[in-house]
């Protein structure tokens, strides 16, 4: 990731080349540096580091816009990509007309850069992995996990993202970002496992030793691995599980999905869709998110309420969807290889309560603690009907205590229905891309 002044110099040069012979142009920089140490079977798997930078040029000719991206940031590379973009835009049919580029914006800036992250290199990462592995080995457990350090907009999902953008209307924006994350699973010989995960922009916010201790304590819960009978169980969902369940909400909160009738908000605006204790927003400026304050075309991100007291609000808009529907742009345009250019609520925040996770577990006579879930597939976007499985870090609660580990179990339910039966909300933390509370709910489960 380039420093601000250097990034702006590159964008300025790129813009002067790209804007020649077209009505308007936009250039942006994405990528950065990624360093990952993965471990499994109590040994380090191939460690990797990766530097990747990509320049994207979007040009408009008679309102028709195309996008080209290149890793070649040389002047020749810029000329080639600008020429290609211009040629492609000129040959587009009239109906491919877009809504044009945004004007300069005012941003709600966030501080998400920690220079210390640059120093968290191979030896430091190996040391963190090593301490977890040794602690696991001493207890007869097997450790697996990952330490990931990112600088810039490069995502672990493979997307380059953007961190700087400029266009011919005078828009100019930059957002430096670092992310440091640790995930750790400890497994015993019977197949029981624990799971901890945390991520922050700041190295100092990550507490690997405390996380390892929590994982150890849970992995050593002595009870026999239990399987669940199908039916409804009282469950405390940890933030990691809640964050994962909210994953499918993001894309389905967009104006395009809404207009097509496939959003959970479609046809329900102003109606109760969850319990009254549910409030869901998109807010990049939340202190636990500190997200980029602009979207993929530089539009300022605004806080959008999606569910308020259980009632449907929203959706989130891009400039294009806003212009087409007469709404206000909220800065939620994304580009995703799987879904193309559309809108997504990328910084979900669910309001929590004051209870700690310990309070929620302690107040549960008989039930489950659900740590990590996976294999999530959306079956029906309108009902947010989804299926998946519980994974590591799931336990039986009896008398307010964790008494036995739980074998993986399949679920299939409507998230809206689940959020209609939330008994209690814990305090919030960042997990799986969302700021969410732990929840005490009635959870319908399939058998394993």
């Amino acid at each position, binding site marked *: 990731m380039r420093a601000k002044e250097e990034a702006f110099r590159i964008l300025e040069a790129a813009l002067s080349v790209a804007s020649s012979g077209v009505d308007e142009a936009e250039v942006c920089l994405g990528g950065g540096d*990624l360093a*990952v140490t993965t*471990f*499994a*079977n*109590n*040994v380090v*798997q*191939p*460690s*990797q*580091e990766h530097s990747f*930078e*990509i320049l994207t040029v979007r040009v408009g000719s008679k309102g028709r816009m*195309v*996008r*080209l*991206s290149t890793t*070649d940031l040389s002047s020749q590379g810029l000329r080639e*990509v600008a020429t290609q973009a211009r040629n*492609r835009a000129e*040959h587009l*049919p009239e*109906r*491919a007309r877009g809504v044009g580029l945004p004007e300069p914006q005012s941003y709600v800036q966030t501080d998400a850069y920690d220079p210390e992250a640059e120093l968290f290199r*191979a030896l430091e990462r190996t040391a963190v992995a*090593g301490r977890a592995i040794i602690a696991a080995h001493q207890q007869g457990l097997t450790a*697996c996990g*990952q330490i990931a350090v990112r600088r810039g907009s490069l995502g672990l999902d*493979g997307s380059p993202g953007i961190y700087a953008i400029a266009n011919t209307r005078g828009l100019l924006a930059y957002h430096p970002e670092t992310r440091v994350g640790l995930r750790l699973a400890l497994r015993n010989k019977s197949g029981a496992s624990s799971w901890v995960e945390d991520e922050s922009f700041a190295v100092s916010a990550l507490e690997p030793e405390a996380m390892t201790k929590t994982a150890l304590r849970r992995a050593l819960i002595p009870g*026999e*691995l239990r*399987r*669940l*009978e*199908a*039916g409804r*169980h009282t469950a405390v969902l940890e933030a990691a599980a809640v964050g994962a369940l909210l994953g499918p909400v993001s894309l389905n909160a967009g104006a395009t999905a809404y207009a097509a009738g496939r959003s959970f908000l479609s046809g329900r605006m102003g109606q109760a869709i969850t319990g009254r204790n549910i409030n869901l927003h998109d807010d990049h400026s939340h202190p636990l998110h500190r997200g980029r304050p602009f979207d993929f075309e530089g539009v300022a991100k605004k806080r959008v309420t999606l569910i308020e007291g259980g009632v449907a609000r929203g959706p989130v808009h891009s400039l294009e969807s806003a212009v087409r529907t007469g709404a206000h742009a909220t800065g939620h345009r994304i580009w995703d290889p799987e879904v*193309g*250019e559309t809108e997504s609520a990328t910084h979900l925040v669910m309001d929590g309560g004051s209870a700690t996770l*310990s*309070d929620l577990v*302690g107040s549960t006579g008989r*039930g*489950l*603690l659900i740590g990590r879930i996976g294999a*999530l*597939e959306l*079956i029906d976007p*309108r009902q947010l009907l989804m*299926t998946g*499985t519980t994974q590591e870090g799931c336990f039986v609660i*009896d*008398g307010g*205590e964790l008494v036995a580990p739980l074998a993986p179990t*399949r679920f*299939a339910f409507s998230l809206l229905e689940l959020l209609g039966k939330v008994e209690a909300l814990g305090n919030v933390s960042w997990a799986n891309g969302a700021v969410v509370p732990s929840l005490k709910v009635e959870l*319908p489960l399939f*058998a*394993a």
Partner: protein
Amino acid sequence: MFNHPLALEQAYNAVEEAIRLGASYADARYEYHQREDVVTRNGTLSQANVTQTRGIGIRVLVRGAWGFVAASEPTRHDVAVAAKRAVDLARASAVLQERPIQLVEQAPQRALFRTPIKRDPLAVPLEDKLQILLSVDDKLRQVDQIVLAEGRFFAHRRRKIFVSSEGSELDQELVYTGAGYLAGASDGNDFQIRSYPFWTEGQVLGRGWEMVAELNLMDHAERVAHEAVELLKAPVCPAQKGTLILGNAAAAAQLHANVSHLFELDRVLGQQASENGRSFLSADKLGTFQLGSNLLQVVADAREQGGAGSFGFDDEGVEAQRLELVSDGRLTGYLSGRDTAQEVGLERSGGAFRASSYAHVPTARPTNLMLVPGQSGDLDALVADTKSGILIDTPRAISVDASGQTFFAVGERAFEIKDGRRARLLKNPTYHGSTTSFWQGLDALGGPTSLGHFGLSRSKKGRPAQYVPVGLHAVPARFQGVAIGAQLEPLDRVAGATDSGNLPTLPPRRGSKKSSVPKKKPKKGARKRDTK
């Protein structure tokens, strides 16, 4: 543009520098990617993107541990720095290496491979692609109640130079082309989708633009739109346990999501455990484990022409192979690379280690998977031979647990089968079960003429996520004793659908009088205990 002499020089420089710094083995992949994505949605151009990326990935073994570093648009200096960082990374990892990683023997390879194509999909003008997609879009939206029309075109060229310290020098150019569309219908209460020609992601093959012409996209648009609308009025697929027939597209999706990852030897060995990448198979099950009925034969063939998973050499420089993974229902092979093959005592690598790009470490991946045809004719013959059951012809989504033991699948639509005929159209069909029980219930497979050829552009694995194209070939297949329907119904309402094994079970909150959990009084202060 791709500068071959420069790429070769940089790859050699990387390998030589890593060996000079103490690596016992090194390889380098210099790659140049060109990718085009065109998406239309409801009459407008949603995206027309071209992405060009270039870089080098350097993989080294030092003291028996791997290190990998990648850099985009590298200069000579960048390559030297990256090689040194890779060596440093491996040294750091070696501190925690219990046993040194070893590689099975691989004779040096010097060869050239090109995907055979008739017309370069990236050279076809954008307006030609848009003309097809927008015409389809128009046709779809002419049908009442169609609220979403989405069309896709995809092309990807991957040129790569591979050099290893063992003397291999390979030059490959792989080309993939994809296209497809979907129609979404709504009556204000329900939303239903139909897609063509595979499922919502479209079709992808290792071919050129000629594949798009052969798909005859326009010819199917009106039918697809009407089928989506018909689903709005169809009843929901009822819960039952019985006979399920999967059309070749649905069988291909089942093969990929449910079965293919089980054979990835790095998963089998637990090396991918941190990222949901396990397999309930184990190395000692090879040759003995009965995964399915005797009819089940699964092959992975990276050498076939036109497959999305075809190549000349994998990303470790091992030549493409045909692997028999399941024979007569029994596990007979794994998808392996050089280190995993060594670990389980195989004589050679299966040539199945692939990476998304130069920036990713190769891992075990499916190539072109085939559910080998049986002798039961085509789909209609299978239906005619079935007294009662459900037919699902198109996949919509499949969820498979972390070790591949269980799955839950959803189809776009289903038909009730009564007395050998298709009866009612049904919507929201689901089926689920345990992997081995499901495949052991396989009792009929379509013949060679019913073999469907499909492909995915983005089979996902790992973190950082890697996406590789995978070829899928399947015939219609019939299964007995399958739990069908039960979309929101707990399994206990589906007769015989639960399998608790020998573990103690925990009953649900309601509907059960006994608890297997011994009741304990809450301990004093339990609320305050830090369970975090």
